[in-house]
């Protein structure tokens, strides 16, 4: 006699066998005591498993149901919070005090180291909107940012429109990248060197990868050269993107140059557009001629030669001997303007340690004004020892508590933002990072057109509110988790908010790591807010599979 399979018997015991199969097996059971007994045992086993797993609902204390936020409540909440923040800011303006670093959290325009730098970059772009530098950066980054934003929107809006959005992104990328040549030629030597001799002309875009890349010939398209050592002596008609341990740029480039290297040497007799360079040591020699703008950063930066428009430089130590057609803006601890430097516009030196760390040699000429901005962090080295610091910290805490209380009261669903460990932290962090970086840039881009100004202004306001409230969301999350772990009964959300804010105030004021913690908190919190708003607007998951 052939017995049914173990699977068939198990499925029969669970009443999960298709009707006709079940009849067949039942017939077999009628004549086979062994299989019948086995099925009976399996049924008993299933029932026993159900009993073992059963959960006594009476043993669970039912928390109060928190109604989800409506879009209207969120708008009201945002307005309330903005009003509170605005009134604090106005009050600050009225009493005319200079805000110390300790309250930087309170001010959405001054939210900690990295955020601060982003805002500064944004305001720099806004203030110099008419200048070539701004428009060039906007032009270069615009395409990338629009693509990122479209991709982000696509992923946020969900599966249905992801396909068309991807197509739109690709179309945008093509539209924004005017191609100078038809094809791409790739030269690749894993360990050896790639050499384009002086008499060779590449009629396409060239991608050269190797241990040593030496381009002596001409390239009629763009050039992407990556290697340990990169030397470019030939002429490139398009854009140059290059990186390596040591990069030397000697030839002439019609487009812009994007270069990153441990040691970057630029002595091109002509860069038709802009130079964006970064490295441990950056040296732009006196033979170089950049027709538009220069943006460089590095530990030690030495600049000479000619720049048609503006220069933006950052680094530990900056030496400038260039002739600059526009303004010079620097972010460095020390800045030296050496002869024969000639800056037609203003010189703006940010972040220098001491006033005398900005040196202007007798032969150097500044057409506009020299503005020096000292590094405030260094001036307030012993801020922990001042009553001032603790006073303002209390003001910050009170302001954040009032704003947070208002927010959580109006939008109770934020009292319990779903958060499942590291995965969610990374996920919301990445959303937050995109929102943090892309929103102000998009807003600035929108402001360039007249129609876009209201959109841009609203986006900037929402962004400011988001950056400020990000900490409230994280504080509430931390507070409620801590209380869950230590408290016996559920506490009012005001208590968990206060606990969370206290923990955050302490953590973000820790020496050295405080800034980083503050930044991470902002990014994660902003991401949680973005995901939350997305869930409120687009959530239609319950119909799936129910």
């Amino acid at each position, binding site marked *: 006699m052939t017995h049914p399979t173990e*699977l068939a018997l198990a499925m029969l015991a*669970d009443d*999960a066998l298709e009707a006709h199969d079940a009849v067949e097996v039942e017939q077999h059971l009628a004549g086979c005591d062994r299989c019948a007994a086995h099925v009976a045992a*399996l049924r008993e086993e299933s029932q026993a498993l159900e009993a073992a*797993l059963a959960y006594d*609902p009476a043993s669970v204390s039912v928390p109060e149901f928190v109604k989800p936020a409506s879009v209207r409540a969120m708008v009201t909440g945002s307005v309330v919070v903005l009003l509170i923040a605005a009134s604090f800011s106005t009050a600050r303006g009225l009493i005319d005090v200079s805000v110390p670093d300790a309250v930087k959290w309170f001010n959405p325009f001054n939210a900690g180291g990295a955020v601060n730098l982003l805002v500064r970059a944004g305001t720099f772009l806004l203030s110099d909107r008419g200048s070539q530098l701004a428009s060039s950066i906007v032009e270069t980054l615009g395409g990338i940012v629009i693509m990122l934003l479209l991709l982000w929107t696509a992923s946020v809006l969900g599966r249905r429109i992801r396909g068309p959005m991807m197509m739109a992104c690709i179309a945008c990328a093509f539209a924004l990248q005017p191609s100078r040549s038809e094809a791409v030629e790739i030269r690749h030597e894993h360990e050896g060197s790639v050499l384009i001799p002086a008499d060779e002309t590449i009629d396409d875009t060239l991608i050269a990868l190797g241990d040593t890349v030496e381009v002596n010939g001409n390239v009629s398209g763009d050039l992407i050269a990556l290697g340990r050592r990169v030397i470019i002596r030939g002429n490139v008609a398009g854009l140059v993107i290059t990186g390596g341990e040591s990069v030397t740029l000697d030839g002439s480039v019609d487009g812009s140059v994007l270069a990153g290297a441990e040691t970057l040497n630029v002595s091109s007799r002509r860069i038709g557009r802009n130079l964006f360079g970064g490295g441990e040591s950056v040296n732009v020699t006196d033979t170089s001629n950049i027709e538009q703008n220069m943006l460089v950063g590095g530990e030690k930066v030495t600049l000479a030669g000619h720049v048609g428009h503006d220069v933006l430089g950052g680094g530990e130590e900056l030496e400038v001997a260039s002739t600059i057609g526009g303004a010079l803006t620097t972010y460095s601890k020390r800045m030296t303007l050496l002869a024969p430097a000639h800056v037609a516009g203003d010189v703006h030196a940010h972040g220098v340690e001491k006033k005398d760390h900005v040196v202007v040699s007798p032969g150097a000429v500044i057409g506009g004004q020299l503005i020096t901005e000292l590094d405030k962090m260094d001036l307030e080295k012993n801020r922990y020892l001042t009553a001032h610091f603790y006073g303002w910290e209390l003001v910050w805490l009170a302001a954040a508590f009032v704003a947070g209380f208002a927010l959580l009261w109006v939008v109770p669903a934020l009292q319990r933002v779903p958060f*499942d460990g590291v995965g969610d932290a990374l996920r919301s962090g990445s959303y937050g990072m995109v929102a943090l970086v892309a929103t102000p840039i998009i807003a600035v881009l929108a402001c360039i057109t007249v129609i876009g100004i209201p959109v841009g202004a609203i986006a900037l306001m929402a962004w400011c509110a988001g950056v400020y409230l990000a900490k409230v969301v994280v504080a509430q999350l931390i507070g409620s988790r801590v209380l869950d772990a230590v408290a016996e009964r559920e506490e009012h959300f005001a208590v968990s908010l206060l606990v969370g804010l206290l923990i955050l105030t302490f953590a973000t004021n820790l020496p050295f790591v405080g800034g980083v913690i503050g930044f991470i908190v902002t990014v994660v919190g902003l991401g949680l807010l973005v995901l939350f708003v997305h869930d409120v607007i687009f959530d239609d998951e319950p119909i799936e599979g129910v």
Partner: protein
Amino acid sequence: MKVDFEAEYRSSYGRVFGLCLRLLGGTVLAEDAAQVAFVRAYRALDRYDPAQPFAAWVVGIARNHCIDLLRRRRHGELRFGDEAAELAAAESESTEGIDALVISERGGRVRAAIAALPEKYRLPILLAYYDDASYDEIAEALGLSRNHVGVLLLRGKQALRKTLAPSEEESR
């Protein structure tokens, strides 16, 4: 017919929370997941068919949400192994069921043994024997065929039988 959501919430919370707790393994996570399930139910109330028991409806939402969370924890993918290979392994095992008496005597040990099972067996077992979900419902929630669910349940129970089989000393 209008649903008294608050009353339904109170009466079905325990079951929903229990499912989330069994699936996710942590009280705080389970509370959050249960809350999300009810919030979703609240928003979709106009799509609720009163002919269906409310608790079963929310449990369905919670089931899907928990599986989403687990999937996210595994970077977007839950692995349930190859059906044919699992089936071959299942058919080669001995066929003795666990003594029901053993299970009822050792409820705590059984739960611990289930919690320690690989996820591919643990999820179907919890859905079938805690959630009371049918093979079809489990198959839909996990994106598997009905037969594959049967195979995984069988393999899961075989693994439990091994863990829970009385040791030499006990049977003496």
